[in-house]
């Protein structure tokens, strides 16, 4: 076999592909809903924290900033391992799936809190004053006037960060979660062939291209006026 044929056989082996396809597909499904869980909880918690921060209670804000700084600093893989291997020592044993979900949600919450907060802080003070002067409460002003404008600012960093963290689901392979990378790796050790990994790469693209497209669509939707 020529080296070209060897490479072809190693990376694009059709019979291997056919054999491992069901496993990869199952893994895809797991990756999709793990990602969705992380996106929903992460962004919801981040938004809640940013809204809370907007009320300007100094002691509360100290802890929010501390939280955001810590979880933006710690690498996702470290956090996942810490939860998976550390918690049992504290008498609390949770599954690899739950660890990955919790760790990545905590991190996404930290990043999305910062993105939303940056948007809220960037909104003109006059917007607050206009809302409050018509008798809206602080929370109503925040919800109906400030947040839509803050979201417009936050949406670009938020989508790229969301995609980065959702891709971080591949770290879950380390704690025995059969998501795409985990499944591909275990197939690799059975077949001694890199084709499952190629399929994994393709699968990630197929899954995340729609997410990128959705991000772009949301960004466009937030362009509420001709500028």
């Amino acid at each position, binding site marked *: 076999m020529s080296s070209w044929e060897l490479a072809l056989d190693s990376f694009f082996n059709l019979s291997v592909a056919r054999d491992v396809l069901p496993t990869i597909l199952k893994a895809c499904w797991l990756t999709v809903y793990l990602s969705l869980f992380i996106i929903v909880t992460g962004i919801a918690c981040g938004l809640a924290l940013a809204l809370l921060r907007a009320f300007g209670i100094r002691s509360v804000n100290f802890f929010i900033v501390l939280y955001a700084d810590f979880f933006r600093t710690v690498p996702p893989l470290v956090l996942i391992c810490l939860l998976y291997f550390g918690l049992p020592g504290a008498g609390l044993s949770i599954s690899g799936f739950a660890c990955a979900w919790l760790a990545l949600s905590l991190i996404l919450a930290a990043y999305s809190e910062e993105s939303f907060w940056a948007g809220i802080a960037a909104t003109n003070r006059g917007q607050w004053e*206009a809302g409050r002067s*018509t*008798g809206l409460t602080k929370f*109503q002003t925040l919800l109906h*006037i400030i947040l839509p404008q803050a979201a417009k600012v936050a949406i670009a960093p938020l989508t790229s960060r969301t995609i980065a963290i959702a891709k971080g689901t591949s770290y879950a392979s380390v704690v025995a979660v059969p998501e795409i990378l985990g499944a591909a790796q275990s197939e690799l050790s059975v077949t001694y062939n890199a084709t499952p990994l190629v399929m994994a790469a393709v699968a990630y693209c197929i899954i995340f291209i729609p997410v990128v497209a959705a991000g772009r669509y949301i960004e466009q939707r937030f362009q509420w006026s001709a500028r």
Partner: protein
Amino acid sequence: MIEVKGARKNSEALPFLNRIGLVERTERQTELQSRLQEARHIVQRRAMIEATGVHKSFGALPILKGIDLTVEEKELAFIIGPSGSGKSTFLRCLNRLEEPNSGAIIVDGVDILARTTNINAVRRRIGMVFQSFNLYPHMTAQKNVSLALRKVLRLPRREADERAMHALDRVQLAHKAKSYPSELSGGQQQRVAIARSIALEPRVMLFDEPTSALDPELVGSVLKVMRGLREEGMTMVVVSHEMAFARQAADKVIFMDHGRIVEQGTPEDIFSHSQSERTRTFLNQMER
């Protein structure tokens, strides 16, 4: 059946009663009533805003050093003064966008600085128009106006939209209801901002340099709307440099400098017969 008969009897009895001398009594009653109304009107033309000893500092920097001002109902009070004199800060104290350090402010009979006062309920009775319009950029003109109607007055959507249209019509912008702020000129934006306030049917309107951010040719349209409000009997407090408008439309002109009221009186008093050297110096500078 009996009640119906009784009612018929009463209505037949009325002309008869009138014939036997009740007519004079009703005439007298109407006269008394109209006198009473007159008296009530005089009583009603009471102080709409009563500020006493208002002090405000930003950190160690004193901005207001004891402001006493009374604005009567249906009065247009016009505050002038050099920049940094505290006139905008004072105006913003009147709806508690700024919290005074001491003093008392009564608006429409409500002590707005009292701890027990629901400031949100008070604010919807006090309209405010800003120098920089502060329209909500993500909402159409109509939504800008209807937001508080729905969220503060809790009107159903349709009713709020109708009232918003009516308010926009009053500032001659009904045809721009579906436009976003960025599609409107400065003058149009400021008129939408006025509509946003008047839709809540406030008792008082505060104007914080409403024409300062406008191109000269757009100032007129905003002043026209303000003149219309005055004719309808709106109580207004205006901080502005539009001296010609003050001369023409104000009931009372207040000159402020260094956190104090230097002088107040009719436009004639201030513009033509000012008692204070500082006022005259300021007015001369404005004319130049």
